[in-house]
C-alpha cells in the first residue's frame, strides 16, 4: 500500500502536466507569454484549445465512469460501453438521425443517440440474465458480438444511404474538430459523474442480483434503470460530440481496482483522473507523432488500449478457469 502513497500523487501530477501540455501543444504553439500578450493566441486558446482539452477530459470521464457503472451492475469486470454494444447503438442512433433529419441540431442528435444507447444497453442487460455464469468471459464476448451485429447493420444502412465515409469518421473518434459552441453538452457528463459517485453503493447491491437486492430493500428495477440511463446519456453525448472511444471503460476501472481494491467510493475519483490522463496522452501522441497530420485519439487508444487490456487479462489468467 505504501507504493500507492507515492504512486497516486505522481499520477495526479502527471495528469496535470498532460492537461497543461494539451492546452499548449499544437500547430500553433501557445505559451503563457503569448497568452498574455497576443490576442490571436488568446482567441485560439479559448476557441480551440480549452474546449478540446475539456472535451477530452469529459469524454474520458464519461466512458470510464460508464464502465464502472456497467461493471457494478453486471458484476463483470470486462463490461463497458464498447463491449456491450452501447456505443454501437449510439452510433446507429446517430446514423438514423443523419438519414431521417440531416439538418438536426446537435441537441436533437444527442437525444436520439441517448435513446438508442439506452435501448441497446437494456437489450444487453436482458441478454445477460440468460447467461448462467455471470462472471465469465463469455459476457463481454456476447456483448461484442452484439456490438458487431449492430455495427454491421449500421454499415449496411450507411452504405445504402451513401453515408459510409461520414460514419467511418464517427468510428475513429477524434477531437480535432472540437471548438467552442460545439462541445458544451459534454458538461452533462459532470452531472453523470457526480450521480454515479452518490449512487455507487446502490449499483453494487443491484449487481448482486434481483433477489439479494430486493431482500435488503433496494428497488432493483429502478436502480438498474437509472444506471443504464446514466450510461446512455454519457455514451450518447460523447458519441455525437466526439465519436467512438474504445477500451477506456474497460481498462481504467480495472487498473484502479488492481491498485486500490474494489471500494467504489475511493476509486471513482481516481478512475476519472486516470481515464482523463490516458485519453489526454493518446491525443497528444496522435497530435505530435505525424504532425502536421493528426491521428485521432481513439485510434491511438485502440492500439494502446488493446495492449493494456491484453496485459491485464494475462495477469488475471491464473484466476480464470476454462
Amino acid at each position, binding site marked *: 500500500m505504501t507504493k500507492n502513497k507515492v504512486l497516486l500523487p505522481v499520477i495526479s501530477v502527471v495528469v496535470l502536466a498532460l492537461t497543461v501540455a494539451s492546452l499548449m501543444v499544437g500547430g500553433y504553439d501557445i505559451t503563457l507569454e503569448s497568452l498574455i500578450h497576443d490576442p490571436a493566441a488568446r482567441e485560439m486558446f479559448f476557441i480551440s484549445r480549452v474546449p478540446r482539452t475539456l472535451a477530452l477530459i469529459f469524454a474520458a470521464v464519461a466512458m470510464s465512469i460508464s464502465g464502472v457503472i456497467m461493471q457494478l451492475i453486471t458484476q463483470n469486470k*470486462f463490461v463497458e460501453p*464498447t463491449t456491450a454494444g452501447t456505443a454501437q447503438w449510439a452510433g446507429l442512433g446517430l446514423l438514423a438521425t443523419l438519414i431521417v433529419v440531416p439538418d438536426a441540431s446537435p441537441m436533437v442528435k444527442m437525444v436520439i443517440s441517448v435513446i438508442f444507447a439506452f435501448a441497446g444497453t437494456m*437489450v444487453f442487460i*436482458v*441478454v445477460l440474465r*440468460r*447467461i*448462467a455464469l455471470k462472471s*465469465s*468471459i*463469455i459476457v*463481454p*464476448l*456476447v456483448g*461484442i*458480438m*452484439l456490438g*458487431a*451485429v449492430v455495427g*454491421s*447493420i449500421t454499415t*449496411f444502412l450507411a*452504405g445504402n444511404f451513401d453515408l*459510409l*465515409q461520414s460514419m*467511418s*469518421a464517427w*468510428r*475513429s473518434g477524434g477531437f480535432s474538430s472540437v471548438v467552442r459552441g460545439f462541445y458544451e453538452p459534454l458538461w452533462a457528463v459532470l452531472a453523470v459523474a457526480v450521480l454515479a459517485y452518490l449512487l455507487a453503493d446502490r449499483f453494487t447491491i443491484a449487481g448482486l442480483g434481483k433477489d439479494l437486492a430486493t431482500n435488503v430493500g433496494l428497488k432493483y428495477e429502478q436502480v438498474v434503470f437509472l444506471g443504464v440511463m446514466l450510461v446512455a446519456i454519457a455514451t450518447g453525448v460523447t458519441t455525437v460530440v466526439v465519436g467512438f472511444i*474504445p*477500451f477506456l471503460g474497460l481498462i481504467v476501472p480495472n487498473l484502479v481496482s488492481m491498485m486500490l481494491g474494489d471500494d467504489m467510493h475511493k476509486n471513482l475519483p481516481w478512475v476519472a483522473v486516470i481515464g482523463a490522463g490516458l485519453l489526454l496522452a493518446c491525443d497528444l501522441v496522435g497530435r505530435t507523432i505525424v504532425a502536421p497530420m493528426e*491521428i*485521432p485519439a*481513439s*485510434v491511438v*487508444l*485502440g*492500439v494502446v*488500449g*488493446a*495492449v493494456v*487490456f*491484453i496485459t491485464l*487479462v494475462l495477469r488475471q*489468467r*491464473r484466476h*480464470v*478457469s*476454462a
Partner: protein
Amino acid sequence: MSVLDSVRARAVPAGTGERRRLSPGVRLAIVAVIAAVAVACYLFLFIRGSFDFTFPRRLTVLGAMLVAAFAHGMGTVVFHTVTDNRILTPSIIGFDSLYTLMQTLTVFFFGATAIATSEGIPKLVLQTALMVALATLLYRWLFSGRFGSLFLMLLVGVVLGMAFDSLSTFIQRVLSPTEYDMLSVELMGRLSSVPGDYLPLAFGICIVVGVILWRRRHRLDALLLGRDTATNIGVAYKRELTLMLVLIALLVAFATALAGPMTFFGFLVATLAYQIAGSYKHQYVMPMAFLLGVITLAFGQFFMQHIFYAGGFLTVIIEFVGGILFLFMLLRKGTL
C-alpha cells in the same frame, strides 16, 4: 421387488407418446434434393444472352458458393461444439478484422489497382497463412498452456480484432473516395468475382479438412459432453480442441481470403442446421449445415439477381438476416 415396482414395470414405457418424426437421414436426403434444385435453378434459368459465356461464369460462382457454404457452415458448427456455445462465431477471433486491415493496408500502400486486378494465388495463400498464423499463435499462447482458457483466448482475439478495426477505420479515412469505394467492394464479400483458377486449391482444402472432420465425427459428439466427461471416456480433450481450432482457422481464413468476410452467414446456417437436422450428431449436423449453406447462397443469388436485380447485395443481405437472427436467439428464453 415391491408391489409398486412390479406395477411400474408393467406401465407404458416412456417415449411412445411422441409423434413420429422424420429421421435425420431422411431429412438430409430431402434437403439435398432441395439443394440440387437450387443449384440447377441458379445455373440454368434466366440465361440471357450467350449460354457459352454465362454458364462457365455461373459455374465458377457456384464453385465459390460451395466453398463458402462448406467452410463457414462446417466451421461454425465445429466451432460451436468446441466452445460449448452456440452464440459465438469463428470470425470473432479477429479473422474479419485482420482481413479488413490487410486489404486496407494494400490499398493504402499500393493504390486501388492493387485490389482491382486479379491478385493471384500467392496473395491468397499469404493472407490465409497470416490469419492461420495469428490464430495458432493465440491458441498456443493462451489456450494450450497450463493456465490456458478457451474464452480467454477468444477475448484476446476479439480485442486484437478491435485494435485492427481501429487502425483500418483510420486508414480508410485517409483514402480518396475512389480508393474507398473499391475497398468497400472487397470488404463486403464478393462471391461473384472469385477467379476460377483459385477453385481447385479451394476444393482441395475443403475435401482434406472435410475428410478429417468426418472421420472424427464421433469424437466431436463426445466433445459435447464437456471436458470432464469427454476425458473420462478417453478423448484427449485439449489436443482434440486444438486440432479442431486449427482446422476451423484454416477453413474460415481461406474462405475469407477467397470471398471476403461473412461473419453471420455461418451462424445463420449452423443455427438452422440444429433446428432442422433432427439429431445432435455431427454426422447429420455437419452435412446439413453445408447443404443449407448451398441452398441459401444458390437460391439467394438466384432471387437477388433475377427477381430483385440486385445481384451484388447477396452477402450483405445474408449478413443482415444472420445478424437479426443472432439478436433474436440472444433474446429468447433459456440459458446461453
